[in-house]
């Protein structure tokens, strides 16, 4: 079930919501949580009920290992610290083994076959939905169980922490300290209209981003990337159009999903971590990764980069750690060399960025405040372009497709104007010489309407407040992260529970419903 489907919006969500709040009133609150857990399993099993077995097995395995780690510490059982560490490694290997089998087995075998000319048969595996997300979440949980940083809880709380439907499928990657305490310590607080209003608003804004903005961009981007895979030459304007369309598609798609998750969480009375905070406004790649897929960045930093040594082993040690972290980050997104290349590119960007910072610090130049605005905007533009180029490989199915598109972006296949622009040309293409037929021969496909839409999204991404800045009047309902980042007052208008905003939201929702007829997958579902 997609968040952007009628069955979710009109059946699953209202039923789950009202029964949850009803149970909260009439029965002990724990029953409401059990209801939420059941609903979450139903939500997960909607695609393929068989997946529930894998998820349940993973939950049981991790909770049992976690319990072992916990008891070993608390009661000082016969487990020595060494065996305790072994138990932790066993847990991690178990998780990674499950992930690797489903996600990387065929990739691995395929590469062996290619490299060694063998013919090892591949498995017809269907990747269990959200496996990357719940695996990472549970690895984090085991690590903290091992280090005795997890609050007391029982199995039912643990299950809900992992399977809570707003975050289960495509994140945000919720760490136990972000949700478990809320579940364990939550008391019935009555029906909170403020949470409902703010949560509903964030949910609708996210839905709008996904259904109206991202899906339109997909219509522009997909044909261009498909063309690139088919060995077709793509001209300059078309290539940039496709790359930019995908850049905005993935942002509005994934941040829309994350907004929906936060909004849904709030409607049920829980705060979920923010995953996006205007990443395209970043003026460096370091900053970009602080604002893009924040929960994954935090996970990679805490569970990979820092344990590998972080920046504690000198400059080159840091660069190595950054590269390894980003390559694994790329591989996490999918079993493919294009994802690895994407990760390597970002690793390189980060290395260059850190090196540049070192140079600036060492030589002290560019400290002058002159041309601050110019420097700031050129840094933002440069960062944005670097990100766009990396997205080309993220989206491309093969290296060939990615490089073909890049060649087009570099103008190596010609710099031609879109066909629709002929009307702006002399005589509007009105004479026979400059007729549409004439231009059709010379011009590409990407039209000015698509460009206007792309530019509009560019303006939104760069100049508009993000959802959480817009909702910053009610930060007390949202997570700490935002309270640290948003300093008021801001120049943009804040959301208020006023009639005009309610009507505006209703208009947005109507427009969303119009586009929801064919729910499309969220891009991050596949990861």
């Amino acid at each position, binding site marked *: 079930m997609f968040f952007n489907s009628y069955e979710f919006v009109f059946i699953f969500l209202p039923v789950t919501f009202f029964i949850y709040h009803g149970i909260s009133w009439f029965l002990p609150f724990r029953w409401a949580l059990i209801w939420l857990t059941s609903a979450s399993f139903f939500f997960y099993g909607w695609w393929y009920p068989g997946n529930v077995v894998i998820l349940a097995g993973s939950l049981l395995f991790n909770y049992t290992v976690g319990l072992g780690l916990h008891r070993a510490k608390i009661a000082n059982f016969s487990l020595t610290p060494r065996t305790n560490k072994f138990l932790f490694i066993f847990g991690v290997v178990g998780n990674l083994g499950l992930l690797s089998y489903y996600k990387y087995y065929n990739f691995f075998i395929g590469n062996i076959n290619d490299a060694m000319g063998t013919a090892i048969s591949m498995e017809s595996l269907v990747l269990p939905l959200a496996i990357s997300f719940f695996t990472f979440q549970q690895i984090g949980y085991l690590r903290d169980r091992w280090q005795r940083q997890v609050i007391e809880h029982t199995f039912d709380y643990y299950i809900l922490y992992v399977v809570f439907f707003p975050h289960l499928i495509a994140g945000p990657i919720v760490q136990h300290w972000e949700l478990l305490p809320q579940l364990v310590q939550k008391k019935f607080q009555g029906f909170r209209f403020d949470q409902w209003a703010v949560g509903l608003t964030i949910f609708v804004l996210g839905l709008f981003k996904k259904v109206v903005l991202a899906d339109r961009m997909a219509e522009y981007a997909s044909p261009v990337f498909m063309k690139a895979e088919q060995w077709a030459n793509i001209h300059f304007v078309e290539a940039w159009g496709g790359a930019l369309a995908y850049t905005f598609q993935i942002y509005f798609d994934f941040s829309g999903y994350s907004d929906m998750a936060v909004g849904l969480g709030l409607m049920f009375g829980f705060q979920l971590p923010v995953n996006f905070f205007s990443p395209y406004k970043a003026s460096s790649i370091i900053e970009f990764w602080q604002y893009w897929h924040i929960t994954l960045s935090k996970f990679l930093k805490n569970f990979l980069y820092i344990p590998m040594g972080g920046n504690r082993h000198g400059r080159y040690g840091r660069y190595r750690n950054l590269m390894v972290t980003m390559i694994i980050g790329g591989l996490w997104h999918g079993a493919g060399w294009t994802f690895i290349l994407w990760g390597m590119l970002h690793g390189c960007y980060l290395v260059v960025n850190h090196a540049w910072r070192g140079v600036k610090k060492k030589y002290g130049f560019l400290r002058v405040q002159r041309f601050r605005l110019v420097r700031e905007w050129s840094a933002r533009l440069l960062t944005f372009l670097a990100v766009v180029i990396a997205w080309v490989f993220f989206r491309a199915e093969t290296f060939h497709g990615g490089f073909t598109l890049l060649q087009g972006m570099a103008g190596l296949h010609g710099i031609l104007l879109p066909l629709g622009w002929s009307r702006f040309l002399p005589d509007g293409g009105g004479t026979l010489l400059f*007729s549409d037929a004439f231009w059709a021969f010379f011009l590409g496909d990407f039209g000015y309407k698509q460009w206007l839409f792309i530019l509009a999204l560019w303006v939104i991404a760069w100049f508009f407040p993000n959802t959480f800045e817009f909702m910053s009047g009610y930060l007390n309902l949202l997570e700490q992260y935002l309270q640290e980042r948003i300093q008021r007052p801001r120049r943009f208008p804040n959301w208020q529970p006023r009639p005009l905003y309610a009507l505006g939201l209703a208009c947005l929702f109507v427009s969303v419903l119009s*586009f929801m007829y064919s729910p499309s997958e969220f891009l991050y579902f596949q990861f």
Partner: protein
Amino acid sequence: MFPNSFFMVTMSDASFRSYIGIFFVGLTLIGGVGLYITPMMSEIPRVGRALIKAYGKGTPDILLFGDSVMRATRIKRCDTGSSTIDTLLAKELPNLNWVASPYSASSMVVFNDLLPIAMNRPNPPEWIIVPVNMRSFSEEWGTRPAYRLDLDRALIRIKFGKVRLHDYFLVWKYQFTKALDMEMEAWRNQTVAYPDFNLGPRRKLHDKSMDLPKNLDCLPHLKEQYRDVLRTKFIYHYLYRLDPENPLLQSLREIIHSVQQSNKNILIYVTPINMQDGERFVGHKFREIVQGNVGVIQTLVENMGVPLLNMVDKLPPEHFIDQYAVCEHLDETGRRFVAAQLAKVLRSEPFKKP
């Protein structure tokens, strides 16, 4: 049912409560108004209103159902004028009161739905003229989701007929959603095979390689360069074998039957097609099959005692101009010809003004 404390509404909660209330009320109103306004904004109600308005001015003698052939062509620079067939006819027969339906798609099904608007008036027209476009029986027109005109038919029912709840669903589905795109996508994946020709995957018939320069009809010397594409298009549009049980023919039967039941007169005419170019690019089979299909219509119509004005091969290629080529759209001279032929029949018995 719930004790007051359940909602625990504080002072500040009140504004949130009204926010949620206004959201849901607004959602219902905006959605409802949208569904109400949309039918009013579409072409069909305009057609109906135009008919009713025209009736208000007096007793019309003739109702002419229109299609795109009736209109001026879209390539204005190739055309010599911009008069429509109904205005040309009105000039030819100034003593008659005309009502022309400006609906632009040729569909017997929609004509059949529109007919009661005219016939149920206190002063129904004495004559009904129905154009028959040979392309409208093609496989494409029979199966293409957009050409099924489901939305149009729902709108006609909403505005002028018996409204069903399902019609509002159809309006919402086709006006507000991407349902049509999805159906079109499925349609593109089909294969097209006529009894005499196998055209292969439909996607190929509608891809860019089948595009023709928009002015090709104005540049006949260039047509030879596009021989293959033109041949395929002529086959695709005209070389089906018309089944007497075709649903569109069933609608035509119903139209004739309704008019005859009301003791009024009806004239059916077949609009010209570019027969010469068809023969040039496809061969002699083109004329043979087209004439066979016209024969099916002729038999049906004449069996019901109605004359058929057959203009299918009455115009040379230079009068067919359309931005997509292989189409029945005519230039001013062609439209004048059609109007003159209709006027000629109408001047004769029994089509004189009562």
